[in-house]
């Protein structure tokens, strides 16, 4: 199926092609007579309005008879419109010619049949005529096909992307966002591994070392061994706290059991700088993926603010406007956040996977504002 043509029956298409042959006559007369007036600036708006009418006719022809769907609000520039009309005149005239040839061929065929019936035609002659006619018919039909495709292409180029074009774009978009999501997941896994290795595991090794030293020092210096045991005990509690934090960074369990508002409260508790959360998304339940994405947007933004921007305070504002949840995070730090950094790229992928948008505004000297908009449908 050729791009740009929607679902339409063969009959309707044929009518559309026929009309497509006559419409150039509509353009040709005013175009030839009034075209030179386009050079006169005062007449131009009037003439352009006329041209737009004619183009609108063409557009309706395409959507009525061929089922094309064009984007509603699509402003076509003047030059492109005139170019289209000129191209249509050419294509329409050629289509008329090809159709005329088809009719002419039909007439010849009828004459041939009559000749056969009257017996004035020899077999060999008939065969020759059939062969020649068949080839010409094939060429003619082929030409007709090419012209209808051209017609569709011209309309698409002028009136903007058709449904097919839009679908193709959407597929490209999805393929991109899918790859980005996979990459974001890998980045997060790497971060989890680093968290476990550099935090929890090192602490556990250190703890085991403390115990080993205490055991070895028992005979030499019982008092010191005692002190080491105390230290080991404290260290064990620190390891537990660290493990809890790592687990929370991997996935906040509160998100599932208590929802976004509670989980954001958890971020505020864990954050080193004062964090004010205003949650005004109403009581209606949000889809789980949207909640998760919103949570990670906030948690990443807050982590960045605390780590890199030397911010003294962060404010988070969550609002819901119809089907759109918007999350706004602002800090008073020194700005200069890199939108292409791995953290923000991962967030953007996460948001894009839900067809949302993420805007980061972080001029040097601050403040940094991060706005995520997530559709909840």
């Amino acid at each position: 199926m050729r791009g740009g043509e929607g679902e339409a029956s063969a009959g309707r298409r044929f009518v559309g092609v026929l009309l497509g042959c006559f419409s150039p006559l509509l353009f040709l007369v005013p175009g030839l007579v009034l075209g030179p007036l386009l050079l006169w600036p005062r007449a131009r708006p009037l003439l352009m309005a006329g041209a737009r009418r004619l183009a609108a006719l063409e557009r309706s022809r395409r959507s009525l008879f061929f089922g094309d769907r064009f984007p509603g609000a699509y402003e076509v520039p003047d030059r492109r419109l005139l170019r289209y009309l000129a191209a249509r005149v050419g294509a329409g005239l050629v289509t008329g010619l090809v159709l005329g040839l088809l009719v002419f061929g039909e007439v010849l065929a009828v004459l041939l049949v009559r000749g056969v019936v009257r017996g004035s035609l020899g077999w060999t002659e008939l065969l020759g005529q059939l062969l020649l006619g068949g080839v010409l018919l094939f060429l003619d039909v082929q030409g007709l096909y090419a012209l209808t495709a051209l017609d569709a292409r011209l309309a698409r180029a002028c009136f903007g992307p058709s449904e097919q074009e839009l679908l193709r774009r959407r597929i490209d978009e999805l393929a991109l966002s899918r790859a980005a999501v996979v990459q974001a997941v890998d980045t997060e896994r790497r971060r989890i591994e680093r968290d476990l290795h550099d935090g929890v595991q090192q602490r556990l090794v250190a703890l085991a070392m403390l115990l080993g030293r205490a055991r070895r020092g028992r005979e030499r210096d019982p008092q010191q061994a005692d002190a080491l045991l105390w230290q080991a005990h404290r260290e064990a509690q620190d390891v537990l706290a660290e493990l809890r934090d790592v687990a929370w960074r991997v996935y906040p369990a509160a998100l599932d059991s208590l929802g976004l508002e509670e989980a954001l409260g958890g971020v505020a508790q864990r954050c080193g700088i004062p964090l004010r959360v205003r949650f005004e998304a109403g009581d209606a339940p949000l889809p789980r993926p949207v909640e998760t994405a919103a949570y990670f947007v906030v948690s990443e933004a807050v982590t960045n603010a605390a780590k890199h921007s030397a911010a003294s305070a962060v404010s988070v504002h969550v609002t819901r406007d119809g089907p759109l949840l918007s999350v706004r995070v602002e800090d008073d730090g020194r700005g200069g956040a890199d939108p292409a950094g791995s953290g923000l790229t991962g967030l953007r992928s996460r948001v894009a996977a839900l067809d949302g948008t993420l805007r980061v505004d972080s001029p040097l000297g601050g403040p940094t504002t991060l706005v995520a908009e997530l559709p909840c449908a």
Partner: protein
Amino acid sequence: MRVILAEDSTLLREGLVRLLVEEGHEVLAAFGDAETLVAEVEARRPDVVVADIRMPPTHTDEGLRAAVEIRERLPETGVLVLSQYVERSYAARLLAAGAERVGYLLKDRVAQVEEFLDALERIHAGGAAIDPQVVHQLVVRSTHADPLARLTPREREVLEVLAQGYTNAAIARQLHLSLSAVEKYLNAVFDKLELHRADGYSRRILAVLRYLEA
């Protein structure tokens, strides 16, 4: 002995320093990265260097590269490398220059204080210390499955302890055997694996490791 440490986790670095001092060793310096390590070792000439493989800035193999360089430049310095995971290629790079005064241990092995201290002593004495995990993986993954299968369980045990870098006497102690029994088993192992009884103690280990890696 005189030791220089390179370990990025502050907690662990401090713990190691304390442990070594308590054991009567002298810690000349302790670093959180490998950047100045080679230069410092050249300047201060410690007996043994202990280095973590994965350190800042890239968290890949900084420590290992420094260790290999130290082995090239100062062969008389013992080098003990601590690795996060069992990486055969890392072990191979480290042992490329022979099996004298060298160690490759899993980081968690540090938690077993006695084993860690023992490994340091062995390296200091000119031997090798290869983590049992590493050896075990080599044995399990070895392409020489048939000759290995011909070993009796006892012979396999002896082989694994030997490959970690222990002397015959130490093997005897660990497996509660007499010294002559160990020698008997080892002869059988070398015959079955068609390993030449290389001269020199560490060359023997190297022969075994190379065999297992091949």
